[in-house]
């Protein structure tokens, strides 16, 4: 596969994620931030995001496992996850976070559990996509060096 084809594929893949609503415009901003001075920026951000998100989702699950849920604590976790998602442009995950936030505000444990379910789902989907993206990106970044 030549470089141009790889690039197109990568572009198409990101485009499909936009179209599915998994990602929004913010992600393209992040892509724009990657340049020669900061060559691995997108990968770094994605890795950071995934680590953060997994930690937070675990925390949220743990919180909801208690008999008496500390909703304010839950709120701060949801806020963090929502912020991260917003920063990276993970649109659907952000919306799922909004669901959880609402349920939490209503002190609705059942709703919270459902929302967490949705968040987990969305996150898994996003991670899969990101992995594929990174894979292609790595290929892309490796290709020129091989050619040289």
């Amino acid at each position, binding site marked *: 596969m030549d470089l141009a084809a790889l690039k197109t594929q990568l572009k198409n893949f990101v485009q499909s994620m936009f179209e599915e*609503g998994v990602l929004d415009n*913010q992600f393209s*901003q*992040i892509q724009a*931030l990657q*340049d020669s*001075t*900061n060559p691995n*920026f997108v990968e*770094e*951000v994605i890795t*950071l*995001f995934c680590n*953060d998100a997994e930690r937070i989702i675990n925390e949220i699950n743990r919180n909801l496992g208690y008999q008496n849920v500390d909703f304010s604590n839950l709120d*701060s976790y949801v*806020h*963090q996850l929502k*912020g*991260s998602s*917003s*920063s*990276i*442009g993970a*649109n*659907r995950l*952000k*919306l799922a976070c*909004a669901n959880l936030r609402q349920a939490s505000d209503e002190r609705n444990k059942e709703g919270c559990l459902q929302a967490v379910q949705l968040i987990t789902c969305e996150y898994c989907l996003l991670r899969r996509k990101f992995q594929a993206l990174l894979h292609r990106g790595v290929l892309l970044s490796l290709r020129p060096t091989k050619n040289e």
Partner: protein
Amino acid sequence: MAKPPRLLIRTFARYTERTAFERPLTSGVAYAVRVLHSEREQFEKQQGWTIKRMDTLEQNPVHKDDYNPDLLEPSPIQEEYAPVIFAQDIVSHVVSLDMLSGQEDSKNVLCARKSGKGVLTAPFRLLKTNRLGVILTFAVYKRDLPLNATPTERIQATDGYLGGVFDIESLVEKLLQQLASKQTILVNVLDTTNQSYPISMYGSNASNDGLEHVSLLNFGDPFRKHEMRCRFKQKPPWPWLGITTSIGILVIALLVGHIFHATVNRLAKVEDDCHKMMELKKQAEAADVAKSQFLATVSHEIRTPMNGVLGMLHMLMDTDLDVTQLDYVRTAQASGKALVALINEVLDQAKIKSGKLELEEVQFDLRAILDDVLSLFSGKSQDKGVEVVQLAVYISDQVPQMLIGDPGRFRQIIINLMGNSIKFTEKGHILVTVHLVEEVIDSIEVETESSSENTLSGFPVADRRQSWKGFRTFSQEGSINPFSHSISLIVSVEDTGEGIPLEAQSRVFTPFMQVDPSISRTHGGTGIGLSISKCLVNLMKGEIGFVSIPKIGSTFTFTAVFTSGSSSSKKYKSQQINKMSNSVSSEFYGMRALVMDPRPVRAKVSKYQIRRLGIHVEVVSQWKQGLSSIRRGSNAINMVIIEQEVWDKYLNNSTLFFDTLEKIDYGTPPKVFLLSNSISSSGANISTGVCNMTVIPKPWRASMLAAALQRTMGVGNKGNPCNGQLPSLSLRNLLLGRKILIVDDNNVNLKVAAGALKKYGADVVSATRGIEAIELLTPPHQFDACFMDIQMPEMDGFEATRRIRDMEHNINNRIHHGELSVEAYNNVSNWHVSILAMTADVIQATHEECLRCGMDGYVSKPFEAEQLYREVSRFFQ
């Protein structure tokens, strides 16, 4: 006694007749003799007639024609008689009448002979004539009697009686004929012997009202009293002159009185009205205040739920929406934002009205603010369409670098005026000029350059001098500069727009008044902006005015009073602004530039911007002149700046110019810059032929010029390639080499934000907790700015900022008091790091909260280049 002979009778009659003129008042004289009864018979014989009685006559007066003495009865037998023997002819009918037989006569006769004096009878009807008369009777005695003779003696001595008849009517008439005209005077003669029954003797019996003169008459009889009453026959005439005069005076007095009354009434009424007016005015004012308060309250109350609406809309936009739904939500959000903007304006208005708006007193750079505003509008002016509206700012050299006042409100006025200009200008230019008032006053007569050619874009403009015609500042020149530090600025915003219709010009500054309702549909806005601007200008002790010519353009001018910033700057918290401009200008300081521009106004603007970088500027109007100037080469020219108009007309596709430049044999050839009116057109047209020319897009800003210079002249770091986007390019200029702290508890956010800032060349340090930020920002430190997340666990952004400000304040104070040495704090005596909030909540309330706790501004998350540029440019220029 013998019978008197006939002769004697005749003689008496003749004598009395002849001497009648001597007794004009008597109508007749008669003599009666005393005859005792004993002598009667003899006497009658002697006389030849009998003694007749007269009382029957008195009782039955007869008409004089019927009078016949022979028909009279003979006198009855009495003790004595007094028959008349001699009589004047005129009264000859009384001969032989016995005087004692008449009631009046006998009384008279007896009285007369007793007293020896003349006696008058009461008036009675005379015999025969039947007229009213009196008889004066004298007694004739036989011998002289002594004066003191007794009445008896007098009776004894009586021989006869002489009687004179007075006909009163003729008597009085005769008298009056001598007195006066009897026509005018009416005389009554009365016998008033008996007071209660006066007997009228003469005159009509007219009622005796009116004026009367009463005088007593004495006919020589002491027992009788007579009165004469005189009065005017006619009633006294009315005194017409007096009457008319007094009526006239009365009328005049009445009129004057009326006038006076009316005046007083009117005065009272006016006074009353005035009171009413005052009352109404008070009420109206109270209502106005109430209205303002109501508006303020309601606006505030609306704003709170509107934040909710906007927030929810924002969230709604994040949900899964199809294109139509998204469009609806966007429209709703745009409307919501417009409403919030309007509410803020209304709140402003209300604040100003209720006097609650207070101006800040901070040090600021006027030029930076105008650059900022210019950049804000540059985008809008590009969007207008095919024709490009040129924006330009010119600030006089005499305006100090730093001023003290309210930069935010000043900015608001400028933005308002420019915003209006942009809305209504389709072609031409918008030019903002700032001068000291003194300069303008000096040039007010001299300046005569308002030919249509000599404007920024070549379009005719409204003469701006007309716009400040009514300013008080100019009419009282002496009071311009009462304090040594106060600076009066005069700012004009001139456009070549469609102008304000003449009929609408009077209500330009009235709130919510637009030219006509359709305007708001085509151009938006509420029409409150100018009214707020006017209020703000008033607060700045200035005035605002305008001149507008339909189809040509409008020029708004306002004055404002500031304090010179250099004098007591330590008192004011200064916004760290001048660092950058200093560093920029030092790079180019002392260089020389040649500006080729045939249009003086435009050249002036260019010159102003270039000179801000410390570059000497020479302006030539023709390119040939310019070339010769370069060739002369006495002062090496480092850069040539060509106006696009010159380029298009003369130099395009011509190698002559560049050939000439190449031929210059000393030093480095000057760099060539092209001033283009718009970014889009410039890129396409010009970069084709010539490689070593840089395009500088307008509007001019010193920073952009500096960036372009840096890039091409190799001063400073290597720049971006030519076609870099405007904001990011400028951002790079602003942020290059800055040390910036980012505080956010979210790692991803941190990473993204740091990435963004690093991209623009900033040196970024990250922190995840508020406490950490405080430690890092404890002076001395090297940070230029800090971006702070607001919502963080443990310590939120507001609290962290508050603590940092406290700390800075504390240290600044101690440095000022000499407790800490300035050297230990990097020679900075006034620590104030710019802190900008990072927030996903872009609503006004948070913005205010930010400012309240000491932040300098805010940027929304995630970072957006233009907004970041706008905020950052306020601090680093």
